[in-house]
């Protein structure tokens, strides 16, 4: 089937198999390999992207479901050369080591901060990132980074 999606601002018409996942389309058809696959039970969050402004695990969404939607991936959050405040904060706070969970973590964190009316505290950040597994950092610096970025978003 053919679907039309806007990915990182660019409209794309993609031919996909009926059972293709959004993550497959992003990685294989569009070459956006920043969206990572870390599990097959939709529990690690490495594949998190934004669909119509909200964070979703792209491995749990059929490509067909995203038809007509607007997708933002890790490759699309910087404003040209200027990094997103969450990207800046992740680097400044050493919130990543191997970097594999990082795209999903950043995408989740951006939505977490953006969709909260009140500033979040550390505990809320920990709860909010519960769907993203990081095996490297112990989360300490990720929490710091999110709190830090929140001030600049």
């Amino acid at each position: 089937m053919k679907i039309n999606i806007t990915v990182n601002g660019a409209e794309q018409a993609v031919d996909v198999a009926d059972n293709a996942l959004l993550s497959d389309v992003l990685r294989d058809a569009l070459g956006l390999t920043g969206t990572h696959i870390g599990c097959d039970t939709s529990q690690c969050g490495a594949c998190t992207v934004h669909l119509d402004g909200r964070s979703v695990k792209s491995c749990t969404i059929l490509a067909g479901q995203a038809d007509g939607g607007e997708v933002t991936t890790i490759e699309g959050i910087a404003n040209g050369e200027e990094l997103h405040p969450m990207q800046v904060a992740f680097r400044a706070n050493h919130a990543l080591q191997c970097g594999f969970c990082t795209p999903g973590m950043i995408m989740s964190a951006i939505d977490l901060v953006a969709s909260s009316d009140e500033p979040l505290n550390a505990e809320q950040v920990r709860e909010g990132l519960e769907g993203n597994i990081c095996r490297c950092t112990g989360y300490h610096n990720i929490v710091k980074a999110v709190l830090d970025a929140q001030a600049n978003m």
Partner: protein
Amino acid sequence: MNAETGIGASALRKEDARFITGKGQYTDDINVFGQTFCVFVRSPHARAKIKSIDTASAMAVAGVIRVFTGDELTADGIGDLPCGWVVTSKDGNPMVAPAHPPIATEFVNYVGEPYAFVVAETLQAARDGAEAVSADFEVLEAVVDTGTATSSAQIHENVANNQAYDWELGDKDATDAAFAQADHVTSLDIVNNRLIPNAIEPRAALGSYDAASQTYTLYTTSQNPHVERVVLALFVQVAPEANLRVISPDVGGGFGSKIFVYAEETAVIWASAKIGRPIKWRADRSESFLSDAHGRDHVTKAELALSSSGEMLGLRVKTIANMGAYLSTFSSSVPTYLYGTLMAGQYKTPAIYVETQAVFTNTAPVDAYRGAGRPEATYVVERLVETAARELGMDPVELRRINFIPTDAFPYQTPVALQYDTGNYAASMAKALELADSDGYMARKAASEAAGKLRGRGYSCYIEACGLAPSQLVLQLGAGVGLFESAEVRVDVSGSVTVMTGSHSHGQGHETTFAQLVSDRLGIPFDSVNVIHGDTGRSDYGLGTYGSRSIAVGGSAIDKALDKIIAKGKKIAAHMFETTDDQVDFADGQFSYAGSNEPKPFAEIAGAAYIPAVYPLDELEPGLSEKAFYDPSNFTYPAGSYVCEVEIDPTTGETDIAKFVAVDDFGNVINPMIVEGQVHGGIAQGIGQALLEHGIYDSSGNLATGSYMDYAMPRADDLPDFQVDMTSTPCTHNPLGVKGCGEAGAIGSPAAVMNAITDALGVKDVSMPATPQTVWQTIQQGT
């Protein structure tokens, strides 16, 4: 020194630029022209004889190119997956290793063992093909339990009693004598729970063969591409060494599980030549659970002999270590040389005797996982010490203090083979107590109690031997490879530098740390240093990254190459100054000579090296590029004191880590930010082991914890903020005075957590993981 990027500065990481923008290149991100896809067909049985395999219907699936079985690899001369360290038993016999064909031929011995693989045009076709492969199995009785494996059905034809070896270390008689004199003996039965490493990037491999040049290229998720190449070439015999290039691009975490040479990379590289096209494989997480080497899984009886005043007199440890179904690449060394040798801990216990029996079961192979042997050793020693203090009615801190190896005793020869070069255990303990606000503990405990909660506190003073390893020592002990590291420092004409290292970064940040070292020593900008790793085609033979060895061994190799660069620079400068090289100084990026007021910056000498106008070419070769191999003369001995406070809700059994303090002595530190990050990650895995993680096989050998639904990974809301600090006694035998920090957190933390939990509950032992259910049951039983 540059305050932002020099040695000792928390320089922000170079590699982050690609990772935070999604531009990392992990194995599965790489696609090559003509690529095909591979899916492995895995045994659903823990133990069975393969009577026949039917591949015909798989071949009929549209898009399937070939279905391979193990017999074809054997027929083609492909060898077994070897174990690289021969451990010798008490009786002088070498360990017994079963045959381990990459793709099973006659028998399958654990659920998930591959017995065929399907190569197809698309991943979907490969999956469909794999589902269509069927085998006729004669199911045999599975052996699953570590403790009773030796008296269970014999798994391998050549391995009696399912025992790989029965090893010992230390003086048995002296230890028995110490126990005979003791006023008090503390004993514990300890189970060190099986863990599944779970790097978030699943293992992957992309193999291709170029018929024109007869060369093989393997991209894979390896922590040590050079070792992978050597093993595949010399042991498995997939390709001649000269024709095989192994590349580990960005790798998403390893924690030990990506050290080993596995069936899958062997299969794709071999089969790519058979079909004449590149083959890609990436594990599903379900496959990772089944087929990555697991960690820990010990059953131990441990006893500590003490005098009435708390002096530690002797230690006796008997461990059964589960190896899984086969001996994985370095598995045999883990419960022996990386375990028994650590039993002295930070203490001057005079007599120690350790026995380890390594057994086979019908479970996934067990090998090194973060800490590898040393977390298990620390757990034994530190649980014993804390329990002994409680039994003697002593303060556990005090008991440790009176037994610490004093600072004036270094170098200290332990009764279990190692010689510690330096340390100051009381200093890290003092700092940890201060950070943990030890004085305020009773008030916090009272507050918890007032709120209906149980509060407990536990300590753990670990030591590790890392910076693997002095080659001649480990070769004597049965290792099959030397453990030096290589480095090449290539200076460009403009004075910028490219470093090729045999170490491999899969999260450790070598591109940054090594660049700091180089820029600091050469006095050149941090941004003009590039670090290249993970490609056997570009760097010299090296041994890769594990065992907290990269800075201590790999960094020292770079440092040694830098010495050579500076020495040659001095020679060139001497000609420019018209003096001799012993008259030339090098500091802050400048070559200077007392007889001249015009020092020469490093870049100018680099230029002169490549434009050889000023020096005689019969004395000095042109160019400025040096190599070094560094072989350490001893292990390094990071050590530290950890304090954990827990608060337990007795109504639910839920444990909250209220405080976690880690004070580590890593000697000199190049980048404190990175080092702290390593400690955080290690602690998270240690707390994971203590509270959450458990790899469980049911009695028929199915992995019952085979997904993130059943294997509890630490998530953000399971963990606290950590308080991390350091003390420093620089390593005495490497040029940088560094020790290594990658494993410490995972080594020190489980005992601290479990000591705190047993303190809170007032019980002698609780088995890991202390899940709410376990804790709640312990409270109900009141034992």
